[in-house]
Structures are given as structure tokens and as C-alpha cells.
């Protein structure tokens, strides 16, 4: 069956109440027939009882009671739809500055970011913010949708002006793949169907881009990284000596027969089998979950990493990271924290706060004494034991950490290793 052989694309949208984000998502879901009749009925009834004279599609995504009361998205909402070509997961996040942490959360797993610009307003502060977060989190693809084209008489000049403004700004950011599309989410122009109102636009529709953007090279296929989650030891008569390393591949391509090195021990061995549920796998790559066995008996445990013999990550106790601060409690230098990295965990100390980044202007603010919620800042962290990591720009999995409060156990920061 064809349907089973489609790829999964995760994308994020960021936007505020009035830039048409909910309308756009509603349009994608509606036109791909992913909204069910009972959901639509419920939203219609709810819109009516709130006294609206239109169907408020944001009620589809804003599921929590407090969100529905306040008419805003506070949290990341995940929505799902599929076409015959792909399955999509939308991480729908609020766009205001006080929700930077939610945007970062949604962006952390995305292959693609949709950045919405209101054609009447052009580039705003929040456009800068959304583009910066997409680049900071290294989302490989971005689509800039210039929305509400119907309200500027489908003007090519307006569109071109916004595109060149955006390009001037984004040249500083280093997003590798940016597409621009003029749309009207309300009327459906260039969303799923081509617009009849913009003959001057020769590109494709938003849905076409989502269905065809090339995502197979989004994972690192060069540097082999296999963090061990757990060791599988069946302790049964027919599997007395079985010792399998369970984990999910974070980078590279592993094959039976490959020479590998275990970290931190440094021992070298050869891959005997790669399997799942007893089925042999010829080539394993990100993001596959597998069980690996080695030719030699090596005493690996959770938190260790299997890599290629001659391609090892950084091994160090000192990290330079860009963090997004997630907690209402600010952080100062000399604070003890817990660091989670791949399947590894270590006590750490925030040694130095280097600077904050103004996410609207990209300027650095030096000489800071604390980092507060939604700030993006550069920190130096020292861990109690060595971590095996890559730069975030090289590998989004082995280059990321979360910072945990030692007392409350809450996740208080998200970091990208420089």
C-alpha cells in the first residue's frame, strides 16, 4: 500500500493572534480533510456561544480551558494531518516574546518552519524573532508566507518589497533553505490550490512545498553516534551470553562489521549485529531505534556512546552553550544544576554568564548578572564528568542539552552547544 511509504515532516508555526496563523492551520487541516465533522460542529457551537459571527478555527488548536477563556495559545499544541504524499506534525506555538520558550520547544524537533508575515504590515519585530529562533534552533528549512495578500490587492510590488526586506535581515542568520510564497489563508490563495489572483507568482503552493521539500539529508549521515540507553540482558537459557546495547542512532550510518569505539572507555570492537525484535538490520541511521551487539565483551552502560573508531566527538567537561531560559526563576553564575545530554546526565556548574542576545536586533548585551525567563544567552558550563558532544550546528541531538533545577527537578534551560 502506497500510504505506508510516506515520510514524516515536522514543522512549526509561530504567530500572534491576528496574523492569520490559526486560519492558515485551519485551512491546511480543512483542505486536507483532517478536520472531522464533530470537531467542526463543536467549534461552530463554541464560536456561536462566544458571540462570534465567524467560525473561530483557533478553537480547534487551543485546547486548554484557560486558553479558550483568554482566546490565546499559551502552550505548544500538536496537530496532525496527512496527504497521500506525506504525514505532517505541526507544532503550533504562540508568537509573543513572553512565549519564546514555547517557540523554542516547538522548533527543537522541527524539519521546517513556517514564518508568517502580514502583507499590510511587512517585517515586524516578531518576524525577526521567529526567523532568529528558526536559525538558532537550526531548523533546516523555512517557508516565509506573506499572508493577507487579498488585503493589498494581490500586489506584486508589496510582496517583492517584503521579500527583499526579509532577505536583507536573514542574510545574517544562515538559514540554508528559504522559500517565499504570497498567500491568502482566508481565501485559500496558494495554500493548497494555486491562486488565480496572482499570475505574477511563478512558484508553487505552500502545500506543494510541504509535500516535496527534501528532508532526507536533515539528519547527520556522516558522524556515527550511538548513545546507549540501556543494556539488554535476557538472562534466559537460550540467550545466556546475549548482551545488546539499546539506543537510538543520532548520526552517521552503522553496519555490521564496522570498527567502532566505545566512549568513555575508548575500547575498540566490531559490530556483530544490528537488530530490532530479532530482525537483522543491514544499515542503521538516524533516527532509528535499534539494538546493537559487539564482537567483544565490553562493559558499556547507559550514557556511554558507540562511535566510529576514527571519528570521535568532543570529550570534555567544559561546554560553551547558547541557552534559552525556561524558568521564572533567573539564573546567576556559580549555580549548581543538573545537565541532561543524550542518554547521559551530570551535575554541572554555570561558571560564567557571557552575554545576552537581543532577539529583535541580534545585538549582544554584555556584562549581565542574571539570565531571566525567555532570555537567550551564552553561558560557560563545567560538568562533573566528561560529556561526548558535537557542536549543535553539526548534530542537533548530540549538540543539545537541557538544564534541570537540582531542587525542584524542573527543566529550566535548553542549550545548544557552540
Amino acid at each position, binding site marked *: 500500500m502506497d500510504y505506508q511509504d510516506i515520510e514524516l515532516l515536522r514543522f512549526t508555526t509561530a504567530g500572534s493572534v491576528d496574523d492569520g496563523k490559526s486560519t492558515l492551520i485551519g485551512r491546511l487541516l480543512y483542505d486536507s480533510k483532517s478536520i472531522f465533522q*464533530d470537531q467542526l460542529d463543536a467549534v461552530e457551537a463554541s464560536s456561536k456561544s462566544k458571540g462570534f459571527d465567524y467560525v473561530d478555527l483557533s478553537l480547534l488548536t487551543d485546547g486548554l*480551558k484557560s486558553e479558550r477563556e483568554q482566546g490565546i495559545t499559551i*502552550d505548544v499544541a500538536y*496537530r496532525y494531518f496527512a496527504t497521500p504524499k506525506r504525514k505532517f506534525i505541526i507544532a503550533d506555538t504562540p508568537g509573543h516574546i513572553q512565549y519564546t520558550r514555547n517557540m523554542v520547544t516547538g522548533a527543537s524537533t522541527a524539519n521546517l518552519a513556517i514564518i508568517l508575515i502580514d502583507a499590510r504590515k511587512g517585517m515586524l519585530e516578531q518576524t525577526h524573532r521567529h526567523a532568529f529562533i528558526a536559525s538558532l534552533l537550526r531548523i533546516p528549512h523555512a517557508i516565509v508566507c506573506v499572508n493577507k495578500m487579498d488585503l493589498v490587492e494581490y500586489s506584486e510590488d508589496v510582496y517583492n518589497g517584503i521579500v527583499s526586506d526579509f532577505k536583507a535581515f536573514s542574510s545574517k542568520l544562515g538559514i540554508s533553505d528559504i522559500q517565499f510564497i504570497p498567500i491568502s489563508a482566508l481565501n485559500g490563495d496558494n495554500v493548497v490550490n494555486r491562486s488565480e489572483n496572482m499570475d505574477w507568482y511563478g512558484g508553487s503552493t505552500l502545500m506543494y512545498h510541504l509535500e516535496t521539500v527534501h528532508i532526507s539529508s536533515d539528519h547527520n549521515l556522516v558522524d556515527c553516534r550511538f548513545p546507549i540507553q540501556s543494556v539488554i540482558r535476557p538472562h534466559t537459557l537460550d540467550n545466556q551470553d546475549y548482551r545488546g546495547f539499546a539506543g537510538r542512532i543520532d548520526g552517521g550510518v552503522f553496519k555490521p562489521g564496522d570498527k567502532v569505539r566505545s566512549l568513555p572507555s575508548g575500547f575498540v570492537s566490531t559490530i556483530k549485529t544490528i537488530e530490532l525484535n530479532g530482525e537483522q538490520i543491514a544499515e542503521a541511521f538516524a*533516527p532509528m531505534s535499534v539494538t546493537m551487539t559487539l564482537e567483544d565483551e565490553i562493559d558499556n552502560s547507559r550514557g556511554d556512546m558507540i562511535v566510529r573508531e576514527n571519528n570521535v566527538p568532543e570529550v570534555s567537561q567544559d561546554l560553551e552553550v547558547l541557552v534559552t531560559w525556561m524558568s521564572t526563576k533567573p539564573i546567576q553564575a556559580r549555580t549548581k544544576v543538573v545537565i541532561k545530554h543524550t542518554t547521559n546526565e551530570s551535575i554541572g556548574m554555570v561558571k560564567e554568564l557571557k552575554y545576552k542576545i537581543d532577539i529583535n536586533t541580534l545585538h549582544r548585551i554584555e556584562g549581565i548578572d542574571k539570565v531571566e525567563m525567555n532570555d537567550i544567552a551564552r553561558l560557560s558550563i563545567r560538568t562533573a564528568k566528561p560529556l561526548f558532544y558535537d557542536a549543535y550546528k553539526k548534530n542537533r541531538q548530540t549538540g543539545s542539552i537541557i538544564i534541570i533545577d537540582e531542587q525542584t527537578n524542573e527543566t529550566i534551560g*535548553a542549550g545548544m552547544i557552540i
Partner: protein
Amino acid sequence: MSNYVINHLKELESEAIFVIREIASQFENPVLLFSGGKDSILLTHLAKKAFFPAKIPFPLIHIDTGHNFPETIAFRDELVEKLGVKLIVGSVQEAIDNGRAKEETGADASRNSLQIVSLLDTLEAYKVDAAMGGARRDEEKARAKERFFSHRDEFGQWDPKNQRPELWNLFNGRKNYGEHFRVFPISNWTEMDVWEYIKLENIDLPSLYFSHQRDCVVRDGVILANSEFIKLKENEEVVNMTIRYRTCGDMPITGAVESEADTLDKIIEEIATTRTTERGGRADDKRAETAMEDRKKQGYF
């Protein structure tokens, strides 16, 4: 495989197995909440794959309302036997008998919310620190915002406004004494994904999911199985219908759909063209606009 891409079902499988393995590693007393429905059957299948050739390293917990379909119980016992895994049963009847829970009255009475008491009691009795379930974000709007690792305070409550952010594949299961986690490895699966994967992997399901003949009562537009647990109202009559179930809850509250679909292929075809959500037939969700969020805050699945 030459271009190093895996299809969406393999990616979802891989993600779920990663999460299940994290649960087994990060917690001391994890359990799998087994309802007998297709989602928990799928979850059990994924858990088996995650640890093969070892056995599933945690028990299954089933909260038995006493209003289950007999098919569900028979299927459960067979599966547990086959996998060689431990089963713990928490009984709602027992909670009612010893006064921990109070039975609802009236024709629409259900034991759905009573499960909360038995569930929390059972989790406490076995000192469970992580209970994994087969809930999916596409099922219901409150679930759309729930994390993979969902924190519960010492009273078993969920605070939707104060959830831990979840980034990349770094799951934070650290907790203070008395707190526990609910974990949802198949959060990102849709109903269609579940059915396609069941077909791909040839997973056995209870016969309830396939078209069959049954005596039913139609109440408020919902088709309910006629059983000893249901009190007929005036003007209601029992009709023999050709039906199947899309979800499996308790007999008195789970709505069936009229369907001729008696194979996985026909079910997938039916779902592809259906215009109502899976839980559209669940009377428990229809009690209020935020019925699910309200129950979840108290400790529901």
C-alpha cells in the same frame, strides 16, 4: 534504503521505542496501563520490540471497572500469558465495596470517573513512579498539549499550565518523593497510523474491533451494547445491528459504529472516509466542553 529515509510508521515506531526504553531506564517502578483497547495493545507490542530478546521488564496494570466487554478480558489474559509478563488488576468493584468510590446513579450512570480512585490506589500500592499509557494527542484537545513525560504531583494531579518544556529527545523524568509520571510513547500517532501499523505488523486485536452482530440500544444518537450494565429507559428498544467499535471503554459508555468492515483493509478504508473522530462515540467526553481536561487534572489516564 539507499537514500537513508525511513517511512512515517517506522519513524513513529522508533520514537515510541526510544521513549519506552527511557521509561525503563529513568524509573524504578514503571508500569504499562493496559485497557485492552487497541492503543494499549499496540503499546504492549512496541514494548516487546524494545526489549527483545529479553521480556518486557515491567508489569501491566489493568483497571477493571467490572463493566468490561468479556472479549477484552479474555484477550488480556491470553496476551499476558503469551508474553510472560506480570499483570496487576485494580478493581473498581472493590473500591466501591470498601467505600473508596461511590457508584453513580441514574440511567446514564458510568464507572468511568470511578476508575480514577482505583487507578491512584493501585499506583500507590505498587509504588509506581511511571505509568505509561496509550493516549494520543490527536484524540482529544486537552491531550494535544500533554507532554510525553507528564508530571503528576503527590496527589496524582496534572497541572496543564505548569508543564515541563520538552525539547529534542531529552526527557526529564526527575521527580521528588511521592510524585509520579504518566508517559505517553505513542503521543504522535494518529488513529490512521495505529491501524496501518497494526496491519503492517500483523498485531492481533479483540474481535470487538471488527464488524459483528450485536443487540444494541441507541441512546442520544450513540449506539450502545445491550448488557446487564445498562438500564433501558422508556421508549428505548433493543435492536440487533451490524456494528464494530473504534475504541474500547466500558460497555455502557462506548459507542459503536454501524459497519461492515470485517478486515483490517476495510477498517483502514472506512477510517479514511469517516467524518467523525474516534471519541465521538464516547459519552464520557460529552459531559462538558473540557470534560477530558477536568478528569485528567484529577488523575485520569
